[in-house]
């Protein structure tokens, strides 16, 4: 509880949950930035100002600029998300809130 706080309760090491979540947030932000740069740049070059739209190149039946600018990176982003969730992101201790302590106590009493 906040009122019981005592400086001596804490070590000099940063909280690992904080450190891990900051590291993960930086990676995610970079991912967002890469997605932005790829999608916007690719679509700008290949999707805007097309000279002969009537004969637009297609891939899998869709305009090629949509497939390589959006659909393919979307699948790549899904693969990255899968790796991120199951290989990179750490399982950390989140702690117990005051209301949960109350709950645990209630369960113990009930039990």
């Amino acid at each position, binding site marked *: 509880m906040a009122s019981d706080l005592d400086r001596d309760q804490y070590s000099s090491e940063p909280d690992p949950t904080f450190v891990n979540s900051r590291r993960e947030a930086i990676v995610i932000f970079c991912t967002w930035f890469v997605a932005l740069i790829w999608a916007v740049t690719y679509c700008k070059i290949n999707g805007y100002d097309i000279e002969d739209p009537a004969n637009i190149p297609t891939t899998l039946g869709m305009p090629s600029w949509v497939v390589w600018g959006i659909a393919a990176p979307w699948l790549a982003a*899904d693969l990255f998300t899968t790796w991120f969730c199951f290989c990179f992101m750490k399982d950390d201790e989140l702690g117990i809130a005051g209301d949960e302590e109350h709950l645990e106590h209630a369960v113990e009493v009930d039990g």
Partner: protein
Amino acid sequence: MAHHTFISSMKDNFLLAAAEPGNSVLFTFLIYILGVFVIAWLSNKLLQNRNFLSEYFLGSRGLGVWAFALTLAATSSSGGSFMGFPAKIYTHGWVLALWIGSYMVVPICIMGLLGKRINQVARISGAITVPDILRDRFNNVSFGLVSVALIIFFMTFNLVAQFKAGSEILRTLLGPIDAFNSAVAALPEWFGNFSGLGADYMLCLVVFGVAVIVYTTYGGFHAVVWTDVMQGIVMLVGVIIMLPLAINQATDAIDSSDSSKTGMAAVTEEMAKMVPPRYVTIGLSLPESPTEDVQIPPGTWVSSQGKVPHGKSGRVFRTKQRNVFSAGAPVSLVEAIEIISPSDKRRSFKAMESQNKNDADGVASNLEVRLVLNNAKVRIPSDYVGDLSKVELKTGTLLPWEDQGTQRIANLYAITSEVESLKAGDELDAYVFDFIRTEDSFLEMEQNVYRSSLTEFPQLEGIEISSLDDGYYAYGAADEEIGSFVTAPGPHRDSTSGFLPLSLAISFFFMWAISGTGQPSNMVRLMAFKDTMTLRRSIFTVAMYYTMIYFPLVIIFCCARILLPGMEAEADRIMPQMAVTLTTNVGMGWLAGLLIAAPFAAVMSTVDSFLLMISSALVRDIYQRNMNPDATEKQIKKLSYIFTLVVGLGALIGAMNPPEFLQDIIVYTGSGLAAAFLAPVVYALYWPRSNHQGCIAAMIGGFGAHLSLYIIGFINGEGFTPYRPLELDPIIIGLFGSFIIGFIVTLKTAPPSDKVVKKYFYKKLEG
């Protein structure tokens, strides 16, 4: 009450009997509402033996993977995802893939950027709401109050807007059903008078509002979450069923003489030939004056020759509004679109044939287009010195119009502004006869005719057309812009830059991924998951979920351009119309009910979350934290129910006569919340040096920077359209402003106490 004749309201090229899908919609709707109430009842049982506040507003921080993933996904997918988004795809084409492109990283951003850390900090401080976190993290009461004030300010507007959206969706879904129209007709007059939007809107608002308020109030957070799960599943199943049906049927609908390709390639090739329609006003007539009022529903096909013409010369139109022929009036004006592309016209004529075949009343098949008109404004010069009482602005008057340096002549049909007497400086609304883009040589002849008309009516000298809307898209209709449905920036009715200029494409990457991260309604959900394993699995689940929903929607509604021509006339109905068309074509009309429930589910899941957020801000952040810290659980419980009920009823009353610019308000509040909250929350979670001065400055700075761009836009006479420096959306300026201001103020003020830093950023010793 006047008798009305209704033309069959199912009116696309695969015309169907209204009864089957109508009953499906009603049946699904009733099952759905029943399911929602059962969930609320079960959730209320969970409230027993638990900490009421934590359970009612945060589900006891115990959400598992499916509940957490789907509540977040469903809350983020508002009604817009299943009504507005399909309408946009239909109207602007493949460029919507880029518009929605950032959804490839939205799940990992909105859940991963803040999720783990905000959940941990909420547990350390015992926070239940976002203002709770900010107040406790900085041990500052004022910060909590500022954030509560902003949440209530933004959310209240948004809640009213969402209530209106929910009712509009319900009205769109139920509109074609005879049983619904009969129920509306049976309503007492006073009921409809509560709203300026009509009795049908009022009925939908009450049904929608009461359902949401009751289940949210009674069941709290768990009811909201589990209905979200149900709604999320409905949305996914709907899309998965529609995708193969749409591709298959669109390919079949393409004339083999138009394309040698198959599948999506044929659809894309066909879209490349399309030209957006023209927006005009048409004068419709019946062969004989009706003896009683005759109603023509929106979406009725009509041609310029009264019967279906099979040559290239035929013109085909689709009405945009419900239109009434008053008894004795032979001609009625109605807004419509005119189909331009040859292949679209062929499909439209087929749709018209089908409509006329099913026209039991024989009204639609006898309609004739007598006039095609364009909107214009007629200006009396402010320095006009002649005698205006002698000026007659009657049908056939020729008036000059300056268009891009070329003098052109328009032929007046009628003045529509109500004026008793003309005054110098007046600008009057008018119709002119269909304004054809003419050759220069022809213009010279027109100008000669105009000059000779002035010798007869010299008092018309100086009176001119100040603006004229010839109905063509500002981008996408010109010869050199053909193919705009398969390229970026996509066609646009008003903007010469097209639908998605590059600057806007960049803005949307911020809007969906970063602004979504800054939404307090998402943050609250991030405080509710059970453990980090749940978070990891949920990010993966939502990523797969969005992949299966959003990109397929682009494909489905590109196919809709082939299957349902002319739906620009009522683009918001494209989702239900497509559901009915696809399922009935395969003899499974009953399935339409399930598909149509998706948009209703989406808006419900957004509204319930917003409702709970406002009531939690009032009960927890204002009453318990500031007015009565010793309130008993019984008092809190009673107040939570009362506030949720009162806020819901308040929004319902507000939505009866919603303010103008409501859609703009939704955009403003969504981006405004992110501009105000993202930077302070990021600093609070990740920067040990951050303090309350810096974070309050970031919050007010983001809010102020964002708001000021709207104010500048308003001062510039743009109404609710914000000023966009370098064509960038206000959200980008607001976010940058917020982060920079917060950073500078933090460094210029005293660091936080060591005690607070230790509590939130250092490892707690065991024992």
